[in-house]
Structures are given as C-alpha cells and as structure tokens.
C-alpha cells in the first residue's frame, strides 16, 4: 500500500494503537451481537489477547533464537554448526503439533519441580523453538547475501569482527531477511492456534468451546476467522512498515 510506503512511522503507530484498542475494546461492540456471540464477547476478547500474547512472545524469542542459530550455522566451529543444523533439521522436519505436545509433556519432567511452568509458557517455548528454526534459515540467507565489499570496507577501517557484525552485517542482513521473517510472523499468528491442544485458552479454543455449548458453529467460527484476519492484517501492516523503514538505503 502506498500510504504505508510513504509514512511507515505513522503506519506502525496506527496499527499498534489500532491493535491495542481492538484487544481491549472489542468486547464492547461484540457484546451487542446476537446469541451466541454477544454473551461470550469477553471470552473472545480474552482468547484474542492470549493469541496475540503467544504471537508476540514467541515472535520475539524466535527472532533472537533465529539470529543466534542463523549465526551458529555459519560458525567456523564445526560442533556449533552441526548442533544448529541438527536443530533446524528436527524442528522443520516434524509437525508443530508434535513439538507442542512434546514440550508440554517432556520439558516439565526435565526441570526442577518447583518451576512448574504454565501451559501458556510451554506453548510459547514450543512455538519459539519452531519459528526460531524457520527464522534461522532466513537470517542465514540474509547474512550470506551481504556483499563482501561491505565487510572489507569495515575491516579496512579497523572494525573488529564483532563491530563489523553488529554495525554492518546484522542490520544489512536483517533488511534482506525481513520479508521472510515477516512471513513467518504472520504464520505464527495462525500457528499459535495449535496451543489449543495443550489446553491453552487462546482464540481458537474459545471458539471451539462456545460452539460446543451453543451448537452454532457457523457464527462462532466466522467471528473467530474475522478476528484472525484483523490480527494478521495488523501484523502485516506493521512488518511492511518496518520493511519500508529499513529499506531507505536501497531506494532512490
């Protein structure tokens, strides 16, 4: 959209405020809807907040993880490279649902009993691990796409390897990787619905429960679908705008 391109800062601000108003205000108009939606408005709102919470937490953790693993994949140290490649291989080669169930059932047995992680936390861990694997491939490709001349120029100026990475390679590779990372984030909004399997009461689970009580799946799932669309639109608007902001050096 043109407007996003010309005013990326305003677009991010608008999408963010819009999202916050939506998350905490949606129950009010929704409560005027007819049965079975109106009486459950507060449940829909709560489920939406859980979905967004899962997305944001796993999205951020997955981004950090993606950068670390993407780097590890390019490490000169072989065991690190092997470990990262193995991680990506496993997480991309098995179903997300299986990963969620595995983390939910196995992780608590490995940790000290007094930690007792919530279902939300366990779902967020599984989602982070999953999106982190996908992100790492984007980050790795982004790093490899930074022209070698940029690195040589930094070296010649006296930048240390870390400074070269932090000031030059990382920002440029993120700019290259961003469209793909944004794509992963948009999928995460939807993939977070799999957390219903470990009884996290996110948006899809709310819909499932309400239709089970009311025997009216059509209005319930249409509402749930509409809410997902609003969420993905808000996230896509923000990532598009961030892309535009990072892209300044590449367009005339």
């Amino acid at each position, binding site marked *: 959209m043109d407007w996003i391109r010309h005013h990326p800062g305003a677009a991010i601000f608008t999408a963010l405020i819009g999202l916050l108003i939506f998350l905490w205000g949606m129950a009010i108009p929704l409560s005027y809807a007819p049965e079975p939606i109106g009486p459950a408005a507060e449940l829909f709102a709560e489920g939406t907040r859980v979905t967004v919470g899962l997305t944001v937490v796993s999205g951020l953790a997955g981004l950090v993880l993606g950068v670390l693993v993407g780097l590890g994949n390019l490490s000169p140290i072989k065991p690190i490279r092997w470990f990262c490649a193995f991680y990506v291989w496993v997480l991309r080669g098995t179903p997300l649902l299986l990963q969620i169930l595995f983390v939910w059932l196995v992780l608590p047995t490995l940790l000290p009993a007094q930690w007792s992680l919530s279902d939300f936390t366990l779902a967020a861990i599984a989602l982070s691990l999953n999106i982190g694997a996908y992100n790492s491939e984007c980050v790795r490709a982004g790093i490899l796409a930074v022209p070698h001349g940029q690195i040589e120029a930094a070296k*010649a100026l006296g930048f240390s390897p870390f400074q070269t990475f932090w000031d030059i390679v990382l920002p440029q590779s993120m700019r290259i990787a961003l469209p793909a990372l944004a794509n992963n984030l948009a999928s995460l909004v939807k993939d977070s619905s799999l957390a219903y399997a470990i009884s996290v009461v996110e948006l899809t689970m709310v819909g499932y429960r309400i239709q089970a009580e009311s025997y009216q799946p059509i209005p319930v799932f249409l509402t749930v679908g509409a809410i997902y669309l609003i969420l993905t639109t808000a996230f896509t608007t923000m990532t598009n705008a961030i892309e535009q902001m990072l892209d300044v050096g590449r367009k005339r």
Partner: protein
Amino acid sequence: MNEHPIIEAIDVHKRYGAFHALKGVTARFYPGEVTAILGPSGSGKSTFLRMLNRLEKHDAGQIFIDGIELNDDPKHLAAIRREVGMVFQNFNLFTHLTVLRNVALAPMRIRKVARKAAETRAMALLERVGLADHAHKYPIQLSGGQQQRVAIARALAMDPKVLLFDEPTSALDPEMVNEVLTVMRELAHTGITMLVVTHEMGFAREVADRVLFFDQGSILEDTTPDRFFNDPAHERARAFLAQVKHGF
C-alpha cells in the same frame, strides 16, 4: 625525505593455490610519498595493496607499517588498520547508513570519539570533498563520483597516515573521473602517504612522486614518473605504455 619508511615490504610472496601471484616483492614507502602502481591486468597490483592492510595474508616475507609488523597478532592488526585507510574501486559505502553516518561511524567505534564531535568532523570532511549538501542522503542517492568522494572522506575520518587506492576511478563514468582525481590531487599535497593503483596515466605522470610497475607478480620498475613515461627500462613496460596510449 624521512629516514624511516612508513611502509616496508620485504621479499613478500603470495600464492593462490598453485598460482604464484606475488613473487618476492620488496619495496619501501616514505611519509608523504605519492606512488602510482601501474601494470597489466593480473600482475598482482591489487594483491600487493590488499596485503598492506591484511585484506589478503602474505605467505612469506615481512611487512612493517610504521614500524609495526603485520602478522596474526590482533593488536598489531588493529594498530595498523587505524593507520592505513583504503579506497575501493566499487566505493563500498555502507548502504544502510547516511553519508554523514558513513563518515562518522569508524571514529566513533574505533577511536571512541563522541557522536557530536565525530559528526562535526565528518561534516568538515564532506565539505572538503564538496558534498556537505548531501550529508543526509543515502549512498544510493549519489552518483558514482560522489560516492567515491564520500568513500575518501570516510577513509580520511580515521586520520590515517597512509591511504591505499585500488583503481578508484575505474568504475566511474568518464565524466565523473575528474571530480575524484581532483580530490586526490588535493590530498597528495597534504603530506599523507598515498599508494594508488590506477590506469589514469595523467594522474600518475602529474601527481605521483614515484611509479612502481608490476608485471607477473614482481616489481619490474621502481622509478620516477618522468623516467617511466619517457624512458622505461624494460621492454614489458614499453609494451604496456604503448598499449595504454592506444587505449584499452
């Protein structure tokens, strides 16, 4: 001329696999000297230049910059890269940073200059290369000649004692070559040591104090521009000059 060379290369060799790219190069460069490095394609000019700030490692021989030996010691390398700036054929400006930031960043990071001071200095350098008006643009918004002038300002911001130029005008449209050569000409009179790999014979003849002629990985001639252009000692140099005269 000063007694102590700022750059000393002693019997330096470089191999790429089986290919012997530099075959025992020995040369000394003195402070303030402007040296034009000439020679046919593939003769090892870039390899030699890039070895002086360790963008390439030499396999044998020794290199000293301002008395510090160039080797695997990271302290030596850091000290040497602070002293030696480089200007590339393709400019290699940081594409994600503004012109001002390109020039100010290295002093901030490496010399730990405060941002304000670094940017003030960067503005003065941009003024000097005639680009103060473009400080807040991104590299891609500039012409090739302008980008190369920014690249020179960026190298100067570190206050190097030595500036290496690897074919600084070869990637430029003909009408932009002069604006870059003008900046380099002005620099030549400031006392900075310059090593310039170039195909600009006019620049070599008029600005350089000295000409090195590379051929097949060795220095074949090390002489004054006057002698090199009027009375080269080797047949290979004569052939090179004849070819250059008739254009490429």
